[in-house]
């Protein structure tokens, strides 16, 4: 277990997860993501460092945080709490002190062993349901050695292991980890290099070549497609999904994930200056019509999540 001393940054471990792969699962959310999707509802997953989250509704304006913060991120001005995150080092002193629990730490450093012991505690739930562990994020492949250790040990303990990935990581690292992953939940966000670059900040070439790599290695794949109004609801993208799906031999299902705006307040809470565009979530009818179209074009199971 010496290797399991390796540390990584996690922003959540979700137990009893029923939408991140088969059965009842535990999903480990890795902090840090190479993409900057314009619609992201998990902005706390962007940077790999620990961050402070501030919920104004809970704040009692006591000012204790302003007193203790070594980087002067907090201030009380004219009866308002101002939180500026640019200089925050994530030391967490303010969160520890905050009597109203308005400040919390997002992200904690954990060893692979610690993560595993929390995951293995749910083994009986996996056994009875055919579930297991899901590595998610953020992007788990941004901490490849940490992810590899966890996946390896989980497999050694007989767990089913899934990985949710955006696919933007080195192909060698995917090669290394793929023997320990049973199922990839692989993002397919946009069709076309330029569009991908525009809305996520990166090109999709590496992503598509990694997808082909996993498929040729014989790995089970579920394609996860976020559906974002006015961004990727066009015919080209629907065709793109169908074409990509038809090129894969080991594709099991296609999941369509309608955009939701539940994460918008998190941007403010993190003290981020730039806010994401607020879009209207697609209605069920629209989603169902996309699902029917893709199912007809691929002969695969399509689920609206």
């Amino acid at each position, binding site marked *: 277990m010496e290797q399991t001393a390796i540390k990584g940054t996690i922003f959540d471990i979700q137990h*009893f997860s029923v939408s991140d792969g088969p059965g009842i699962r535990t999903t480990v959310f890795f902090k840090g993501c190479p993409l900057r999707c314009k619609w992201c509802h998990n902005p706390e997953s962007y940077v790999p460092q620990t961050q402070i989250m501030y919920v104004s509704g809970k704040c009692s304006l006591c000012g204790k945080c302003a007193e203790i913060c070594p980087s002067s991120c907090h201030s009380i001005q004219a009866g308002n709490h101002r939180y500026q995150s640019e200089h925050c080092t994530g030391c967490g002193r303010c969160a520890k002190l905050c009597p109203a629990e308005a400040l919390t730490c997002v992200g904690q450093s954990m060893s692979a062993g610690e993560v595993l012991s929390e995951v293995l505690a749910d083994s*009986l739930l996996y*056994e009875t349901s055919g579930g297991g562990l899901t590595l998610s994020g953020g992007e788990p492949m941004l901490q490849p050695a940490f992810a590899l250790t966890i996946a390896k040990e989980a497999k050694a303990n007989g767990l089913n292991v899934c990985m949710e990935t955006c696919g933007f990581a080195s192909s060698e690292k995917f090669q290394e980890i793929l023997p320990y992953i049973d199922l990839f939940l692989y993002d397919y966000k946009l069709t076309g290099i330029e569009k991908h670059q525009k809305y996520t900040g990166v090109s999709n070439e590496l992503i598509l070549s990694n997808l082909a790599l996993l498929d040729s290695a014989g790995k089970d794949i579920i394609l996860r497609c976020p559906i974002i109004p006015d961004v990727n609801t066009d015919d080209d993208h629907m065709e793109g999904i169908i074409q990509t799906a038809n090129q894969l031999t080991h594709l099991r299902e296609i999941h369509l994930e309608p955009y939701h705006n539940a994460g918008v307040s998190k941007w403010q809470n993190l003290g981020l200056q730039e806010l994401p565009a607020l879009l209207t979530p697609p209605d069920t009818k629209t989603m169902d019509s996309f699902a029917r179209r893709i199912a007809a074009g691929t002969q695969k199971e399509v689920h609206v999540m």
Partner: protein
Amino acid sequence: MYERQKESLAAYYQKITLQKDRLADDTYHKQFFDTRRQIIEEFETFYAQNPDTPFALFKSRMHTLMAKYCRPVIFEGNPFFFEFGYREAQSWGISEINPIRFLKQKISIGLHDKFPILTQCEKEFEPVFDLAALGICSASSSFDGDHHTLGYTNLFQHGLSGLMEKLQNRLDTFEENSEEALYCRAMLESCHAVLTIAEKFADAAREKLAGCANEKQKQYLELLAETAGKIPAMPPQTFYEGLAMLLFTREAAATLEEIGISQLGHVDRLLGPLYEQDLLAGRITEEEARELISIWMLHTDIKFDLAHNSWPETSTCIQLGGCDRDGQPVYNTVTRMFIEEHHRLGLINPKLNCRYRNDSPTEYLTAAGKAMLAGHNNFVMINDDIIISGLQKSGVALEDARMYVSGGCQETMIEGFGHTEGVAFYASMPRVLDLFLQGDAPDFVIPCGVPESYEAFYESFMTSICTFFTKMITWRNMRQSYYRQLTPSPFFSATQTGCIENGRDYSHGGAKYNFSTISLIGLGTVADSLFAIKTMVYEQQKVSLPEFVRILSANWEGHRDLQKEIIALPKYGHNHPEADGLANRFLQDFTKNLYPHKNERGGNYIPSLFVYYHFETFSHVLRATPDGRNAFELISAGAAPGQLREIKDVTMPVKSMQHMDFTSCGGGSAVLDVKLPLSRHMTPELFASFIRACGQYHCPTIQPNVVSQEELLDAKLHPEKHQSLIVRICGLSAFFVALTPEVQDEIIARNLYQM
């Protein structure tokens, strides 16, 4: 068909609904009370002539008179016979107007004359009412008027005639006029009365048949005329007869004995084979069986105006699943039909008490899951391994233990083997701890002093709490040994193994098993309090015990930082081995100390950890507790964790249970409330897996709820939009919108484990 029945039953029960002390319909009121008067007059004559008759024979005499004057009610188009016309609609335990009530009152007066010591005894019992006022216990009733199950299996096997034959044979072996012989005579007389009433139903059906022109209605009346009398005399031969047996004998016992018979039977175990036989012989179709089941289940909800009832207890349950006496798993078409019809009709009662174990078929758990996930929050899932092993630890034979059922809420009863007195009393352990620390009720709870180590503190608390319970039990036994004279139940006892053999009533220890159950309230609060004292006072020495006690009596005023630090400590139910271990140690030590106590029937006291709504009243008199709780806030419920720290997900308390050994409760039920995630991806199959995993984590009884916080909040604001929202609370299910705002708030607060 079902809808017509619903209307006709509703019309009848509306008329006999008790409003203050009158029945809603004057005609019925007059009829009820005229009959009651006739019975009482005749009884008084008998009493005057035979004042020294044993109490059981007074009761059986009363049964004879009730049979004589019974005017059975037959509902048009209903194949069942169950309405004796003696109780008001809403009665589930002790009825206000039932003639048998008079007998209890009369004997009660006689009892004081006969046993002057009883008056003395009651005087000595008075402090217990002070205790109740202090919020330590509930001691308002001297009887368990609920939590009984009739010996249905004995009735199915022998028929009432078979049991009477057994009785007659046993009677012949007793010395004439011996106590046992007289008691057997009472049992015989009561059984005769039950048979007479059944035959009266047949007579009434025949009478109606004469003037009936409707072919369909004729068929039902012919069926009734043919069946009533044969049932309950003979063992049921068909599915229909089985249903008729359960309903008729349950109503007979509840009406004649004045004890709540909360269990309608382990229906799939008893009826499954009869249904299969009928099906093979072509006597029934599944559709017909479902119709019978739906009409059979209808009779409880319809008596109570549940949509406008702020505390809709009906104490009516059925048992499903589990295993039979040989240990074979029980699951069949009847199980599925009961679950599906209950869900389809949107019923609240009978409550669905589902036993499960490791080898319960997935199909069974999935059927329950399907209804649950659609918001039919009417289930409890009871872990056979915990209850059966527990009962064995209490000395119950394995085959007998397998016959357990549960009800009013989830109280364990061994069907056909006596009475386990579901709640002898409730006791608030946090209140005992509070008085132990504060030392201001030394007459009841030995004060704490200043122990030097945590071990010394713990020992001292254990001694104090055990001394308190010994006192409670002594008082109670003393009082019960006289008061049980009031409750001989010769018909009920005739169905319980042991009573015929011993020639003794169940209330006098005649049955094979004679437990009493004490319901312990606030395990989580006490365990967390002990953990806080251990850590803060003795290990980290952040505060001295006397100072801590002062802080608590001042409700943390000026010490909010300490309170915050304490709330952040590990808590029971959060899968923390040390915190859970402390709770378990407390439970094991306490039960060990409780076992030597015997009740007035010679049986053991066993603890249970479930809660009725009393825990709210217990909470609202309680000062701040060492776990970080503010004064008057809610204490923990049943086997569930306290509410000071957020429970992030449902797996947390479930995993905690592996650190607990609830079999030490000796069969007493421990109930864990869980809130299941409302995800579209949550399937009945996953529910089944979850329940199975709960069993493997040694969870005791699971009381699940599937409802969103948003819906609860909206239902409180806009009740008109949520008329059919069902929630599970404290051992019963209810329409959320009918509950009082206080109870609604409590449910909202307790609706933990958001996903």
